[in-house]
């Protein structure tokens, strides 16, 4: 019975621990696929860059990337190194059917690097994504928008999205702004030189932003698809585009810089070493660059980890207390029932310490056997769940992923739970064991 209580405690701890481990691995994989392990910014960007990304560009970023690639320490750790450009501006759809505009948060990237980053799967979660044909290294005019932004810009019909309102029949209010919209459209057309025609019938939007020098600039983006972002605020504002297009918008004919250099490492365990090496490298070359890891860039990750860790700790404490009381109760009953036996073997010459150890060992054996049974049961249940084909949408994600309980892949978790419960059972046996050892032989022999 007591062994069952210990087994139940081990089972609860391991199943939840396995689930939490899977959540952590899933979140980490999602973040690393999206923003890499480390991002290098120009000093000051992390705190102030959101207001004016263009003002915090890294010049000669190719040199920085080559420096990293060729470094004998950090170079071999790197899986993908790729530049990114963050930008803010106004997106407008002035195609005539829907005259709409909306502020946007954009990111410029290299599509092939993005595809390679999405193949990262250190924890073997099978959440890698196939290369996205909607973005192409060869076509810098293409981009993706958040589903929310696509709706606002009236792109539902061409992108096949549900939930869009019907176009307004009368546009009296919009007509006031018509000259400005026409100006933006004309600017975009002029910027592209009128040479590129959209032959694929994909919708086009115009992006307006201020250049690093403060002048307004406009480019035209061919929207090749929409992508949900998981967080509504981002979904309503997000645009991903080719790095070249983002640089053209932000820097115009000036020097093309980037706001960040993303590093995706082969293994997460190299993160601290890579960061330390980069810090030393930048100091050595007097580069005013700042390094941030994905945990700093996505506070949500840390919040989820802390939440699950707190729940796990709570469950572990509750289970520990249950095991403690169950073992104390059992061992106390055991001592009472075996008082005569204790008297007999004490009379035969067993020392007090021998009696004490006997009951302590019994307590620890109850803990060890119960924890072992619980661990075996947890492994079996986890295997059943993992093969049941269950799916769910993790926090911060938009796609269904397999529901897994990562117990077998976490030997440290199993060992820790096993040791903790065995230790609690051993500690619980101390009081009854001491009571048994203190019994007077004649009193114990007289006990019925």
């Amino acid at each position, binding site marked *: 019975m007591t062994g069952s209580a210990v087994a139940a405690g081990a089972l609860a701890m391991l199943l939840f621990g396995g689930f939490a481990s899977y959540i952590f691995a899933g979140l980490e994989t999602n973040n690393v696929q999206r923003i890499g392990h480390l991002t290098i910014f120009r000093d000051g960007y992390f705190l102030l860059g959101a207001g004016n990304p263009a003002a915090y560009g890294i010049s000669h970023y190719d040199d920085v990337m080559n420096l990293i690639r060729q470094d004998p320490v950090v170079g071999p750790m790197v899986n993908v190194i790729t530049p990114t450009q963050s930008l803010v501006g106004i997106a407008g759809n002035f195609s005539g059917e829907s005259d709409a505009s909306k502020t946007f948060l954009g990111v410029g990237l290299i599509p092939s690097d993005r595809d390679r980053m999405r193949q990262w799967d250190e924890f073997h979660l099978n959440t890698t994504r196939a290369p996205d044909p909607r973005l192409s290294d060869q076509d810098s005019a293409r981009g993706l928008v958040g589903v929310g932004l696509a709706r606002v810009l009236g792109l539902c019909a061409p992108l096949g999205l549900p939930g869009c309102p019907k176009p307004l029949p009368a546009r009296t209010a919009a007509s006031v702004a018509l000259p400005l919209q026409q100006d933006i459209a004309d600017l975009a057309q002029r910027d592209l030189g009128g040479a590129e025609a959209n032959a694929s019938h994909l919708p086009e939007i115009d992006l307006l932003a201020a250049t690093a020098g403060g002048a307004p600039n406009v480019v035209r983006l061919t929207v090749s698809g929409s992508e949900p972002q998981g967080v509504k605020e981002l979904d309503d504002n997000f645009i991903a585009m080719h790095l070249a297009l983002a640089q053209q918008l932000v820097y115009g004919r000036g020097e093309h810089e980037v706001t960040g250099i993303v590093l995706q490492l082969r293994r997460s365990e190299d993160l601290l070493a890579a960061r330390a090496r980069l810090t030393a490298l930048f100091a050595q070359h007097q580069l005013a660059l700042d390094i941030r890891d994905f945990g700093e860039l996505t506070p949500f990750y840390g919040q989820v980890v802390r939440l699950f860790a707190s729940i796990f700790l709570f469950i572990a404490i509750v289970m520990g207390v249950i095991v403690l009381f169950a073992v104390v109760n059992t061992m106390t009953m055991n001592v009472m029932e075996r008082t*005569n*036996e204790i*008297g*007999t*073997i*004490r*009379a*035969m*010459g*067993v*020392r*007090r*310490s021998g009696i004490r150890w006997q009951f302590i060992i019994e307590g620890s054996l109850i803990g060890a056997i119960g924890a072992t049974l619980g661990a075996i049961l947890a492994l079996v249940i986890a295997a059943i769940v993992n093969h049941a084909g269950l799916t769910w949408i993790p926090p911060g994600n938009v796609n269904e992923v397999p529901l897994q309980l990562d117990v077998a892949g976490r030997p440290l978790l199993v060992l820790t739970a096993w040791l903790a419960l065995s230790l609690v059972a051993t500690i619980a046996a101390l009081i009854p064991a001491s009571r048994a050892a203190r019994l*007077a*032989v*004649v009193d114990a*022999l007289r006990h019925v």
Partner: protein
Amino acid sequence: MTKIESHLQQPQGGAKAPVVRLHEIGKTYLSGKINVTALKGISLEIPVDRFSVVVGASGSGKTTLLNLIGCIDAPSSGKVEVCEQYIAKLDDDAVSDFRARNIGFIFQSFSLVPVLSAYENVEYPLLLVGMSAAQRQERTLAMLDAVGLGGQARQRPNELSGGQRQRVAIARALVKGPQIVLADEPTANLDSATGASIIELMRRVQKESHTTFIFATHDPQLMSHADEIFAIRDGQLTDHRTTGAP
């Protein structure tokens, strides 16, 4: 049944000091809020190699006297010397070790460890004296054979009759070759025929092993085999008779 003398420690020849010496022993204990005097100034000596019996009515102090001789209780006053060892000088661990080497117990209710087989119960005292596995096996099997339980070695106590259990208890008390075996009412829970056979057995093994047996009893059958009889009443020694050859 085989003889057991070859397996047991033989007392030394020549003039032998008494195996038990009690001098002005008193024992008082607290029962609830009342001080009860169990023994009042008892002095006695028990020679080696004797079949000794302490007789008296219930509550006369027989068991208390045996507990003091067996070093599982301490006197309130007086001196206890067992096997030429002044017991009061020993600490608790030393007294435990002393019991493990020198004293065997046979209890009225057998007091076998229920989860151990007959063999394991008999082997247990040998573990306490640190004997090798081969020696333990040899002695245990010989001892079980000596008490007529060679065929029941693997049986648990609950699979044995009352007489068989007491035989296991006798084997357990004797297996380590103690100088003294103390038995408190060893036949009280047995029918008269079984009790008689147990007494015969104990008498035989006592003669073969030359171990001093000390009984607390009011069983007339047992008294009839005694070499020494100590009678106590109300905690005082009232009579001492030597009936057998010294």
